[in-house]
């Protein structure tokens, strides 16, 4: 069947574009342009182990180096935001088992069609815009959830402090176990200075847990070194197509499958505010008491990937607490709270304390990240 171009009927018999799907969403990455940052906003934040800063990107650091991640507006043309990594403590002698990296973890249900671990495994292209204060070959890797099948890669930054678009094309693994559930399906990462224990052979699938190929630039060796990334796209096919922009609302909803909060978008959890608090009980006619107060189940704005971890806050920002109040009389923060019946769609909480109250209110965060 031949491709037909017709001035009346348009294009027919078109099987694919760049070996990928014709329409819909090509980019398998959520928040690829770093525009959603629910947890810390634009504050430069120290990383930890499996610490999410900008939505959907988790960070790891072990060894002598330390770094921060920050949502910034220094971007290539056509983008609003990027992630900025800054080395705040350099490690001049990186131990073999040290590591520093940022990961994206795709949910298994979202990569099932890539046929990983089968003879039908797709060819995919990972592309991103990057710049750094350092130049040379930087490293990264793609792997499965068990971290026992791994594809290390290198990308070259030619000019310091200049945005460059990079792409890595590979045929996905035809062996190994690749989950297609709500657990981790596929991981890719950028390495900032992992030790020799985590360096594999570039551009081939292999057994093992690697973060990079050898001989790459160690960002963590230079105090104050910076590295930026945005426009992250993973798509089927061997061509890095232009970045597929999504609306902010669409990206936020996609991110909320993994994390949401009762606070307004631009308010960090733990901030002193009553805006967004969930009010429970609140029987204004009842006599105030110290007994249990429960209320309606609190629904999530977006169903979660899995039952999430809940942190509650009172109005003053105390975590693990709620506020008890008597309308028109008083409100008291720092009151005990018990979160219960956490599901993927909702949860509820109950409180009792020495504070005479007719109602209670609390903020929350719900975290179901991978």
């Amino acid at each position, binding site marked *: 069947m031949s491709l037909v171009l017709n001035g009346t009927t348009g294009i027919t018999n078109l099987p694919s574009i760049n070996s990928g799907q014709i329409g819909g969403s090509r980019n398998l990455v959520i928040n690829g342009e770093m525009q959603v940052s629910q947890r810390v906003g634009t504050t430069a934040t120290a990383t930890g182990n*499996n610490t999410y800063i900008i939505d959907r990107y988790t960070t790891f650091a072990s060894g002598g180096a330390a770094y921060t991640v920050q949502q910034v507006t220094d971007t290539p043309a056509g983008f609003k935001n990027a992630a900025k990594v800054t080395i705040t403590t350099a490690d001049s002698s990186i131990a073999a088992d040290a590591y520093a990296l940022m990961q994206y973890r795709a949910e298994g249900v979202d990569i099932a069609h890539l046929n990983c671990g089968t003879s039908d495994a797709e060819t995919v292209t990972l592309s991103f815009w990057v710049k750094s204060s350092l130049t040379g070959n930087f490293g990264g890797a793609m792997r499965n959830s068990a971290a026992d099948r791994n594809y290390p890669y290198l990308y070259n930054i030619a000019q310091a402090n200049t945005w460059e678009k990079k792409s890595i094309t590979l045929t996905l693994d035809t062996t190994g176990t690749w989950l297609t559930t*709500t*657990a981790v399906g596929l991981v890719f990462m950028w390495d900032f200075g992992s030790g020799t224990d985590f360096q594999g052979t570039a551009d081939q699938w292999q057994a093992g847990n690697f973060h990079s190929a050898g001989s790459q630039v160690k960002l963590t060796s230079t105090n104050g070194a910076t590295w930026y990334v945005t426009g992250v796209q993973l798509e089927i096919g061997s061509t890095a197509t232009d970045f597929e922009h999504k609306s902010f609302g669409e990206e936020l909803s996609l991110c909320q499958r993994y994390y949401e909060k009762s606070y307004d978008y631009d308010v960090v959890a733990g901030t002193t505010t009553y805006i967004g608090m969930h009010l429970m009980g609140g029987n204004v006619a009842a006599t105030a008491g110290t007994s*249990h107060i*429960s209320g309606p189940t609190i629904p999530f704005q977006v169903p979660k*990937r*899995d*039952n*999430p*971890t*809940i*942190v*509650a806050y009172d109005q003053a920002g105390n*975590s*693990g*607490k709620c506020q008890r109040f008597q309308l028109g009389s008083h409100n008291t923060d720092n009151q005990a709270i*018990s*979160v*219960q*019946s*956490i599901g993927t769609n909702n949860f509820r909480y*109950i409180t009792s304390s020495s504070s005479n109250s007719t109602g209670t209110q609390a903020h929350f965060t719900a*975290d*179901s*990240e*991978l």
Partner: protein
Amino acid sequence: MAKYKKIINLITNEVDCIQDTETTAFIPIKAGNTDYQAVLKWVADGNTIEEAD
């Protein structure tokens, strides 16, 4: 106080979730939750979750 403590559902009177006493987070007993996976590892390392009040 142990790092983790059981939380009783006051309606069903059964253990409903685990509270991280350091972060105050309430962690559902669900294998797919990464915080619960950390609880299981902590227990496997020989620690014991504190009983509910």
